[in-house]
């Protein structure tokens, strides 16, 4: 996951200030990838330090704004990154995994309760994303919103995988102490 390359990509489109970058970021990835101003500014500072972005002050003293502009080196960095497939698979660093690892002594009911609540949260998020997708489809998928639609899809597929995994855990845990599995019918 790369805020760095996201910001480089946005600056490759046009110079922007921090506020505009936050808005642009939310526009392409909003709803499922929350980036706060702190992350934006700390990432931008690093980009400036690495010579990938330069900053300049525009406007009169009372309304001055710091605008960021991508450098040639920055453009090269972004294009190199863009052309390469991503070798990393999603890391298993979800909070839920960590919580499960520390559920000790083994308390089956507490784990099942946690998993059920987690599953509901994911489902609620999926419902929200689905609503966004439905509204997009109603307005007609165009070149402008196709990428948003595909990103929403990605978020939905990931949440679906998380829910499937939780259901899988629930079924295994229920069986673990000899509770008979529910028969098919």
């Amino acid at each position, binding site marked *: 996951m790369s805020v760095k390359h996201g910001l480089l990509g946005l600056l490759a489109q046009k110079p922007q200030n921090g506020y505009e970058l936050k808005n642009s970021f939310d526009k392409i990835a909003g709803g499922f990838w929350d980036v706060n101003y702190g992350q934006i500014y700390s990432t931008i500072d690093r980009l400036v330090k690495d010579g990938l972005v330069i900053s300049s002050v525009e406007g009169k003293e009372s309304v001055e704004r710091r605008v960021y502009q991508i450098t040639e080196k920055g453009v090269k960095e972004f294009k190199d990154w863009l052309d390469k497939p991503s070798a990393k698979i999603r890391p298993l660093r979800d909070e839920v995994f960590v919580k499960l690892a520390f559920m000790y002594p083994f308390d089956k009911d507490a784990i099942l309760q946690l998993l059920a609540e987690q599953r509901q949260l994911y489902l609620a998020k999926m419902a929200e994303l689905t*609503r966004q997708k439905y509204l997009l489809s*109603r307005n007609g998928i165009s070149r402008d919103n196709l990428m948003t639609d595909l990103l929403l899809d990605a978020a939905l597929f990931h949440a679906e995988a998380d829910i499937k995994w939780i259901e899988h855990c629930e*079924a295994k845990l229920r069986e673990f102490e000899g509770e008979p599995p529910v*028969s098919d019918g």
Partner: protein
Amino acid sequence: MVNKVEMKDVSKIYKRGKSEFRALNGISLSIKEGEFLSVMGPSGSGKSTLLHLIGALDKPTSGNILIDSIALSSLSDDDLSQIRREKVGFIFQQFNLLPTLTARENVLLPLKIANRVSSEAYRYADEIIETVGLKEFNNHLPEEMSGGQMQRVGIARALVIRPSIILADEPTGNLDSKTGEEILNLLKGCQEQYKQTIVMVTHDAKAAAYGDRIIRLKDGQIEEEMEVTNALPISNI
């Protein structure tokens, strides 16, 4: 808001020889007019039984079910099949189209069975065929259509009688994810356009996420219930 369906303490027990299987265990549930309800749950949790009982395809062992305030338990078998013909639209995972009939003939079939063959009914049928995007496929046989097109016929056939409720059983279970999304968008669109009440059974979270409310069954009971809240009401957009 009017309740389209009321279930009061409904149980369904199947007897196999001497053993009993309690498919539904004291379920109470109200489904509001115009609501899209998703029903989730693992295999054997009672999802299909619930759908069959609401659709008057089967009778509960105990408890009451009302559709449009009509108590199904008070009805004879003939009256029950009339309820099915006139008030319930079914959408199936396997589409269940008649292979020798064209798309349009399949859509018109419920009207013929219910003996509602007025020109107004036919005009409405053609409007629905257009809504579901099948106008060009009017004269195609099911074997000449893709899965997505067949399910569009399935949706049109369910809508054509202006049902009180549509019952959909894994409607995207036989479709790839892109086609499934198109079908669910269409179903959601029909909910909106026709104020259609929909109950959809699915084990698929992506499909269930289209509901306004999602319930989860386990061992014949409602284990969890979730209103989809923090979403904007569609009509305001």
